[in-house]
């Protein structure tokens, strides 16, 4: 039991007791080791269920759009979640004054795939101790350095601290290193085009179009996704190269200037498809071209709404 969990439980209980919110969205212990699961707490007593650790891999902001606007929500917000909430508030998905953000500086999410790749699928128990993750399996105890098993997105996280939270529990963490954050994009960009395309084909080739990435993403909240349209049929709906590629291209493009780089899509993918390199490119572009970073401000509109005459122009002749 870490001190953060305790503080979260107390705050959640207080919010529910004082009727500041109707629901607190947080995490509870999962049924499987290495995985916590989202919890929706409506009664003060249930607050005891809440946990917070490195196994909390969902982006809780994704649940914001699933509640009606009248509901007052308390959300446990790490850096990425708080920025997603900001973006969602700008997109009118909830009223900010009906939200209570319980900010938590985040040290990163443990990638269970990285652990299972080393210990096999036989984890019995897992816990964190300081900078270490201790995994108990049938063949004994394994110790990992936290940094080695962090999820890729978390390892290069730029903003671990929540923004615009109503209360912040825990001490602020140092901001991430931009060079590290954008390294994958720049590395990928440096590859010859045919290799880039080959990689894209290879990754999307595994896609089974389950849309788990869509469900996990806080910013994918359309009632009807473009891939589900029939008039017009924007793209092939079956698992064809054309269809899966179009899905991945447009899904990423719809995140331009909105993605908070939480990596929930990748964590959710059952086929372990790499996809953050797609959206990261767009986020990088938005920052480079238009100085836009999602969640950086309470008012700034997404970049596609903020075009100006003085946009940098290398495209139009």
């Amino acid at each position, binding site marked *: 039991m870490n001190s953060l969990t305790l503080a979260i439980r107390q705050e959640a209980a207080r919010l529910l007791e004082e009727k500041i919110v109707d629901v607190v969205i947080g995490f509870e212990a999962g049924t499987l080791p290495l995985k916590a699961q989202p919890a929706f707490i409506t009664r003060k007593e249930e607050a005891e269920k809440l946990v917070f650790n490195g196994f909390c891999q969902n982006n809780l902001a994704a649940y914001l759009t699933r509640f009606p606007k009248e509901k007052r929500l308390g959300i446990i917000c790490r850096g990425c979640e708080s920025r997603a909430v900001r973006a969602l508030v700008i997109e009118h998905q909830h009223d900010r004054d009906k939200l209570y953000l319980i900010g938590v500086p985040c040290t990163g999410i443990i990638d269970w795939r990285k652990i299972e790749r080393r210990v096999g699928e036989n984890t019995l128990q897992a816990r964190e101790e300081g900078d270490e993750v201790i995994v108990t399996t049938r063949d004994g105890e394994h110790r990992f350095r936290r940094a080695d098993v962090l999820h890729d997105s978390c390892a290069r996280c730029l903003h671990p601290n929540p923004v615009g939270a109503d209360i912040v529990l825990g001490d602020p963490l140092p901001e991430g290193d931009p060079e590290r954050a954008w390294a994958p994009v720049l590395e*990928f*960009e440096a590859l010859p*085009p*045919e*290799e*880039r*395309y*080959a990689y*894209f084909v290879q990754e999307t080739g595994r896609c089974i179009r389950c849309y788990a990435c869509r469900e996990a993403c806080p910013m994918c909240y359309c009632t009807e996704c*473009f891939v589900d349209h029939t008039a017009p049929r*924007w*793209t*092939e709906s079956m698992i*064809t*190269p*054309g269809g899966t*590629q*179009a899905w991945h*291209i*447009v899904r*990423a*493009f719809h995140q*331009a200037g909105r993605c908070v780089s939480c990596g929930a899509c990748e964590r959710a993918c059952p086929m372990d498809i790499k996809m953050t390199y*797609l959206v990261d*490119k*767009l986020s990088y*572009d*938005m920052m480079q*071209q*238009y100085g836009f970073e999602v969640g950086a401000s309470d008012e700034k509109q997404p*970049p*596609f709404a903020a*075009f*100006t*005459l003085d*946009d940098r*122009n*290398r*495209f*139009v*002749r």
Partner: protein
Amino acid sequence: MSDKWTPRIVVFQCQYCLYSEADQKWMDTQLPPHIKLIQVPCTGRISPLFVLNAIQGGTDGILISGCQPEKCHYKEGNLGARRQLDAFRRFLTYLGLEEGRIRFAWIDVSERGRIQQELAGLEKTIQAMGPITRLATRAIPVGEKR
């Protein structure tokens, strides 16, 4: 690749594009069959999905022609289009699509013959690149009808 290969080009043209009368007439009547003219009210109407459909359908080149900045019929539609389509083009380039297959030109009414130049320029670029291979994953066999 046979010598006879002719590139397929889609031209998205804004309805109010500042073409001179003669150029517009040329576009409406003289366009060779391998070039398809699709008129939209404004370049701002061009959804990236249109571009993606064209690319995936095996179009070798796309020309988008719109009005000069500050001369847009819809005040600033062309600026919106520039931002969105530029980002989309850069994204496709990132995925391996050759730069230059998508061309965007702002054409002024005083620039007589510019559209022909732009088309010729695009065709030349595409000829150098050859037919589209990457991302053209929805190509339909010759003559197939729905």
